[in-house]
């Protein structure tokens, strides 16, 4: 953490309230000890806190807390709807700092995908699941040709067989040359 006076002064309140992490707090403490300006700001804030807490304690003694605590207890004990609990559980994921981390994570993920494509050129999402071939052109040079596409096994079969006229000359029994599917 870079500690210039402006940064430190902005974080002084959090530091005095004990809200900073150990490393940040230690850095601010060292800076404040060596910087007269920030040290003065710290004393000023501490005085404000003392005054404020004094006022609050005085005023708090006049406040009737019992109805307030009753309300709190009632809120705690009442069953919240499932949706509300779910939202409560998921809400931290939508804090800006967490969403911000999702951006580099998504980029790293995309890089991984692209690398995979680079080293395994045929790799695409799910495209290798099907094996159906596309027949662009076919010429049997006088033979009959059948193309079978079987959707269950994703198999394309090109079958070459002699014309029916020639088959008729042979016996009526199916021969090996007949298409067998």
């Amino acid at each position: 953490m870079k500690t210039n006076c402006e940064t430190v002064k902005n974080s002084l309140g959090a530091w005095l309230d004990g809200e900073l992490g150990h490393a940040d707090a230690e850095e601010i403490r060292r800076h404040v000890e060596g910087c007269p300006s920030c040290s003065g700001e710290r004393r000023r804030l501490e005085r404000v806190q003392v005054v404020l807490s004094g006022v609050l304690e005085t005023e708090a003694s006049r406040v009737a807390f019992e109805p307030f605590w009753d309300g709190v207890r009632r809120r705690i004990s009442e069953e919240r709807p499932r949706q509300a609990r779910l939202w409560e559980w998921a809400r931290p994921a939508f804090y800006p700092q967490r969403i911000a981390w999702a951006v580099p994570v998504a980029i790293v993920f995309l890089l991984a995908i692209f690398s995979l494509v680079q080293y395994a050129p045929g790799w695409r999402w799910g495209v290798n699941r099907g094996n159906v071939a596309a027949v662009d052109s076919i010429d049997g040079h006088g033979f009959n040709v059948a193309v079978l596409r079987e959707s269950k096994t994703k198999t394309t079969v090109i079958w070459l067989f002699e014309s029916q006229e020639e088959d008729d000359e042979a016996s009526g029994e199916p021969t090996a040359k007949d298409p067998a599917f």
Partner: protein
Amino acid sequence: MMKLLESRLRRTLLFSLFLLPLSVSAPAGEKAPQGVQLSIGTILASNESDDFDAKLSKMKNQLEVIKYSSYRLVKEESQKVPWNGNALFEIPGGRTLAVMPQEYRNSRVSLKVRLQEGEKPLLDTTVRIRNRGNFLLGGPAHEEGVLILSISATVQ
């Protein structure tokens, strides 16, 4: 405290901006496929017996499309071919199978295939198959059955 969060947010976004050009340039650096590994399996199908060659177990579902009772792997051959290069495979019965990989687009390999018997062409076809996929070419009579060729291509 908010300042610290903003600072972290800013660092995260800067890191994202640093990664962004990498993600854009990565596909541009994708290597063009150098060639194709062609594999031809020659299978003899017949109704002479009920034997099923164990070496064809991976193809059993595919071969079930063709209604023969017996399947035997007669020959298996692989060749690596450059694009628009011609690979010749000897097929039993004095036949030749010539396969020429033409292009690779949309995850499909386009193959120009010619089957001939001696000098006589039997079949010319152009087929697009999935990378690592295959198709079957069958029909030529051999011994007591017919030959079925399993033609597969893997982009290198």
